[in-house]
């Protein structure tokens, strides 16, 4: 499942340019390969669209401790979101601001809630701390991906308030 992941960013713009270039070339010797190329472009377009939608969804999430968005703090970058829409799979890797950041699980919970609320149900989501960026990396990862714990956390009014506050600017 993981093998088909796409780090879409560097690929997107390259392919977009290619599409523009290929349009006027219809009729010349490239014509034979055009249909295949077009299909590939369409698939890529879908992936890019989903990727950008994700980015808009999650990059405005506010850091629980600071008045900045996660993107401004480099907690989330474009490279950190991997999308495989063929397998309906998303992986988000985030970087806590300090190694002992106690808010890492809350940030992760915010990411999960945001994606749960905005993605089609068929998507499987894994959320991870970037390797080597948190003192209790595996414990945080395990907790964030245990759906029973997430479900219980989301029935805790205090935690839900905190998450809603973090998501406020982008959740409409």
């Amino acid at each position: 499942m993981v093998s088909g992941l796409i780090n879409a960013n560097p690929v997107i713009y390259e392919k977009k340019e290619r599409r523009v270039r290929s349009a006027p070339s219809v009729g010349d010797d490239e014509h034979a390969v055009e249909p295949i190329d077009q299909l590939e472009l369409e698939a890529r377009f879908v992936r890019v669209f989903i990727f950008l939608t994700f980015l808009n969804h999650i990059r405005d999430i506010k850091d629980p401790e600071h008045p900045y968005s996660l993107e401004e703090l480099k907690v989330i970058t474009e490279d950190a979101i991997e999308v495989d829409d063929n397998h309906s799979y998303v992986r988000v890797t985030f970087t806590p601001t300090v190694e002992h950041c106690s808010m890492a699980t809350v940030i992760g919970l915010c990411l999960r809630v945001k994606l749960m609320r905005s993605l089609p149900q068929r998507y499987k989501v894994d959320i991870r701390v970037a390797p080597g960026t948190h003192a209790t990396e595996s414990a945080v990862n395990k907790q964030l991906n245990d759906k029973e714990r997430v479900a219980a956390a989301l029935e805790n009014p205090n935690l839900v308030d905190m998450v809603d506050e973090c998501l406020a600017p982008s959740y409409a």
Partner: protein
Amino acid sequence: MDLHDDGNMILKEIQTLEGHTDRVWSLAWNPATATSPVFASCSGDKTVRIWEQTPSTRLWHCKAVLEETHTRTVRSCAWSPSGKLLATASFDATTSIWENISGDFECVSTLEGHENEVKSVSWNASGSFLATCSRDKTVWIWEVMPGNEFECASVLQGHTQDVKMVKWHPTMDVLFSCSYDNTVKVWAEDGTGDWHCVQTLGESNKYSLFPSFPPNPFLCFYATLVDALFFFIRPLCWLADIVSGHSSTVWALSFNAEGDRMVTCSDDLTLKIWETDVGRMVLGDDHAPWNHLCTLSGYHDRTIFSVHWSREGIIASGAADDGLRFFLENKDGLVDGPSYKLLLKREKAHNMDINSVQWGPGETRLLASTSDDGKIKIWELATLT
């Protein structure tokens, strides 16, 4: 019926049941209704639903909704062996006992004591004990008293993280619990009413024949002897792959009909089969150790949440990859010891994670599965003719 011929089984989807408005966590077939099956399901929508089969159409319909009792997710449910009482465990930290009083289900008792979410509930074979477990890392044993009274008999501490599931052995008063701490623990009573952990099936499966409570001097001596012996034998055990436990959360476990084998499923994407000495168990030795028999890996590619062993020996598993898998003991080649083979698989059995799979109590091979998509599906594993 020969279950050992390849390719003669087919999985038929009988019915999809809708009604729950949130993920369906778990379900339990009523063991006393084999001819006209009834089961209960529980959900994140805080309700429990009772489903009954209409004999004429052989289709299920919702007979009752048990609501306004639990204030949070109902995580698990279990019928007493007589089928008269239903126990429900909830994230609201309580366990409720429901009785079917002339067709209506009434909450007749509420068990309080856990500090937070209760995750699983199980009745022993005779219906005299109930066990519950929680995120508070404890397992509670409740004694069933006359008049729907439940008295806490023991609070078992030993797991280092939340306990995901408790399950009594099908014939003996030995309790099994599995946990977020990656282990399975075996609990037994020592003859004086005290319950202790007699074995931990963990990643580094330290041999513990007589761990904490040898009640008589002979056993004490024997335990020391065994420990000394295993000091020398342990390196050999490592070589022989005795280090065999799960490497992530153990979500569920189930026993075969004979009660001498157990299957566990985990977030580490494997199923493991464990075996004990049935002879020693028949003689009343609660502490016959469980040993790792084999590991089934490569069949699911996301967390395996549920596993259930049918009476005739078919293991069904359901996972977060939305798929169902069926396994059967491979009796062809016993050269390398017992092994299990994939009998059948169904991708996309549900649109979302599968949380629970349970075989029905009747003669036909009926399986019910529950999912995050809010649906319950009834399947029949039929033989091609």
